[in-house]
């Protein structure tokens, strides 16, 4: 029986590889949300028509793939041409940017045997690709933009589900947990709790009815952040495989993926992926002929930021009001329906399969002493090239902002970079050479967060930045505890006084006092972290606040 799955995977993989090898040319079109918003679907249709019109449908395949990361230059597409080999016998790969349905046929024409050199595509050749990708290390996103997210065969052909197959046939749950622990993986939702430790806790927890659950937290809600959405859109099977391995390690038989309804494409791709995995016998009862049962259900959230907090997320899955409750008990002891529950972020789960596949030693070799592996960031704001990047832990902010993103446009100066969204802080220029890892970011008053990274130039008013995030927290507060419900409103009012230049020195004292109160007395992470943008801007840009004080009469 166990061999059957191995055979199935092998067979699927070889069939798929063979099918793909028939094509010597491939055009991969990004079908992530950002590119689709810029008509990449029409681009793909135009390409398909052009391929048929040019009569090269036997050699050239048009493929849907996930996000390659250069979201500000979409729609993106990649042409892989095996008829022309570049260095080291690799087929030539060309990235094109800002492709419209009108330009699309020219790309196909350039692939025909009779193609004449043309300058029509020059403007669309992606010039920044070299610098943008040079310093990136793709682990989580390794398949994104290379495989069709809606085809399980493509995932399997790229080595997918090999990890779970070997785990189920050869590994004990303890060995899985040990590997994750030794790999040094930490929670990618933002807090950086050691994943192996979390798994071990849930594995050891007693369940009164024998049930345990695995939850994938896809309630990504930081303004401007879309790392998890891109992973779910671009490589949904990777997330499923990670959840399966987790379920095996902790002894769970049911999993939930919690995605906000605001990410319909991610939800759709996950739904398709779950169904495909079920049909392939990778989800369900007696997976791979083992005694392991595991199934996954998709739960759509209504888009409340607080539902990213684990206890609120669990309440929401249970059908209740999405409000956090005091911890302990932690979900590891008493989570969904009162059972021990493992809850990890999308990106955390997406890191699991490669750790199993390539070994924890490989993974622990990436990153810094305390922060291992890579981190995906959604890089936005005032940089030349924004988009989705994956970098090894320990890279400096300067490398990200100036090497990868190309620096600040419009001849302006760098002012600050904001990480961690509404729960994070603003990091000024003097810390640009600091390595990006959990501890360093915390030391300068910010957090790793889930991966939002907003770069600001010297035209930015830091008080308005703080007020923007406070407004976000105020709107997203669930209203359960007093400091968050009322404190954020009062903080927002005080910040508005600074923006309007009607604040008094007494208001500055009130502002600092309230920040302390909300940080220390709020019930959950939303409130506890809500003052961070204010605290960090007060720390590094205090003079801006002082300049806004009302001149004394």
């Amino acid at each position, binding site marked *: 029986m166990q061999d059957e799955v191995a055979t199935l995977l092998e067979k699927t993989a070889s069939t798929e590889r063979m099918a793909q090898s028939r094509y010597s040319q491939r055009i991969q079109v990004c079908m992530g949300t950002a590119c689709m918003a810029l008509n990449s679907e029409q681009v793909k249709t135009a390409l398909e028509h052009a391929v048929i019109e040019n009569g090269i449908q036997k050699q050239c395949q048009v493929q849907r793939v996930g996000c390659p990361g250069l979201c500000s230059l979409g729609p993106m597409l990649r042409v892989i041409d095996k008829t022309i080999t570049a260095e080291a016998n690799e087929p030539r790969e060309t990235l094109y940017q800002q492709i419209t349905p009108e330009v699309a046929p020219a790309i196909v024409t350039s692939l025909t045997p009779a193609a004449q050199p043309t300058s029509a595509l020059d403007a669309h050749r992606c010039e920044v690709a070299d610098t943008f990708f040079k310093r990136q290390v793709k682990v989580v996103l390794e398949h994104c933009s290379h495989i069709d997210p809606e085809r399980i065969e493509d995932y399997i052909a790229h080595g997918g589900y090999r990890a779970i197959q070997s785990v189920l046939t050869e590994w004990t749950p303890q060995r899985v947990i040990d590997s994750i622990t030794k790999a040094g993986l930490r929670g990618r939702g933002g807090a950086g709790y050691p994943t192996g430790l979390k798994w071990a806790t849930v594995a050891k927890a007693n369940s009164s009815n024998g049930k345990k659950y695995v939850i994938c937290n896809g309630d990504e809600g930081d303004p401007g952040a879309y790392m998890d959405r891109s992973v779910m859109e671009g490589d949904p099977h990777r997330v499923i495989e990670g959840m399966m391995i987790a379920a095996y390690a902790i002894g769970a038989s049911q999993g939930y993926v919690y995605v906000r309804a605001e990410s319909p494409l991610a939800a759709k791709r996950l739904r398709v992926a779950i169904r495909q995995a079920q049909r392939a016998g990778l989800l369900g009862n007696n997976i791979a002929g083992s005694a392991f049962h595991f199934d996954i259900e998709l739960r759509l959230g209504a888009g409340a930021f*607080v539902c990213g907090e684990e206890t609120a997320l669990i309440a929401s899955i249970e059908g209740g009001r999405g409000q956090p409750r005091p911890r302990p008990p932690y979900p590891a002891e008493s989570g969904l329906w009162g059972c021990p529950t493992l809850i990890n972020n999308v990106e955390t789960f997406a890191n699991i399969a490669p750790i199993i596949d390539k070994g924890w030693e490989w993974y622990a070799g990436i990153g810094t002493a305390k922060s291992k592996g890579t981190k995906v960031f959604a890089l936005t704001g005032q940089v030349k090239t924004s988009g989705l990047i994956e970098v090894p832990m320990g890279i400096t902010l300067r490398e990200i902002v100036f090497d990868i993103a190309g620096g600040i446009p419009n001849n302006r100066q760098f002012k600050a970079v904001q990480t961690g969204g509404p729960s994070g802080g603003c990091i000024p220029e003097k810390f640009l050479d600091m390595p990006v890892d959990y501890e360093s970011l915390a030391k300068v008053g910010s957090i790793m967060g889930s991966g939002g990274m907003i770069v600001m130039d010297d035209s930015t008013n830091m008080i308005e930045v703080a007020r923007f995030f406070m407004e976000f927290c105020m*709107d997203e507060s669930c209203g359960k505890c*007093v*400091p968050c419900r009322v404190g954020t409103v009062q903080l927002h*009012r005080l910040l508005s006084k600074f923006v309007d230049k009607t604040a008094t020195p007494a208001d500055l004292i009130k502002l600092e006092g*309230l920040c302390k*109160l909300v940080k220390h007395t709020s019930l959950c992470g939303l409130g506890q972290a809500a003052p961070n943008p204010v605290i960090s801007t007060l720390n590094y840009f205090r003079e801006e606040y002082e300049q806004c004080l009302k001149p004394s009469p």
Partner: protein
Amino acid sequence: MSKTLTLNGQMISAREGESILDAARDAGVSIPTLCHMNGVGDVGACRMCLVELAGSGKLVPACTTKISEGMEVNSDTPQLREYRRMLVELIFSERNHVCAVCVANGNCELQDLAIHVGMDHVRYDYLYPAENVDVSHPMFGMDHNRCILCTRCVRTCDEIEGAHVWDITARGIKSHTITGLAEPWGEVNTCTSCGKCVMACPTGAIFKLGATVAEMEKDREKLAFLKNARERREWV
């Protein structure tokens, strides 16, 4: 099994599984509370009962945190006193609390708490929201101007009366206590008119119709009595 812990420098004993709040009260130490009420489950929402755990310095709600052996708890530090006062001020700033014209004046837990924390004025801007008064019920009224969203009515109606007439709608500062499916209270036919929510409400938000300024007295221990009577058959 009993456990020993330190509260404000004094060793006290407590039952296993007991909350810090109960253990403290048994030992004669009062910790201010607002959303806690004997007889219904705790939610740890008002943050008034926050206490400091020695070592970590972490603040935890005394009502939902279980005691453990050797725990060192401080319930009365200058920092906690300041936080409690700020929290009470925030509550006063949130809605339109006018003690002078309130049915619960003199019988109000919020008013008592303001005295306890030494609030002589509110340093934050009042928000002055436009709130409704629902007097559609034949016996009781609900004045949202005085509601502090402690959810004691919600829990009382759900856990003791079993009717679950009350709930909370919307979120953040827009949170609101509702009856039924956000209908006028008088039109909610699941309401048994038992009046337990009136007893549970710490302020003058839920009141008996006809009560005027300072007339609305509430007997909150009755609710704990009812629960004890039912669950433990203790009728005294």
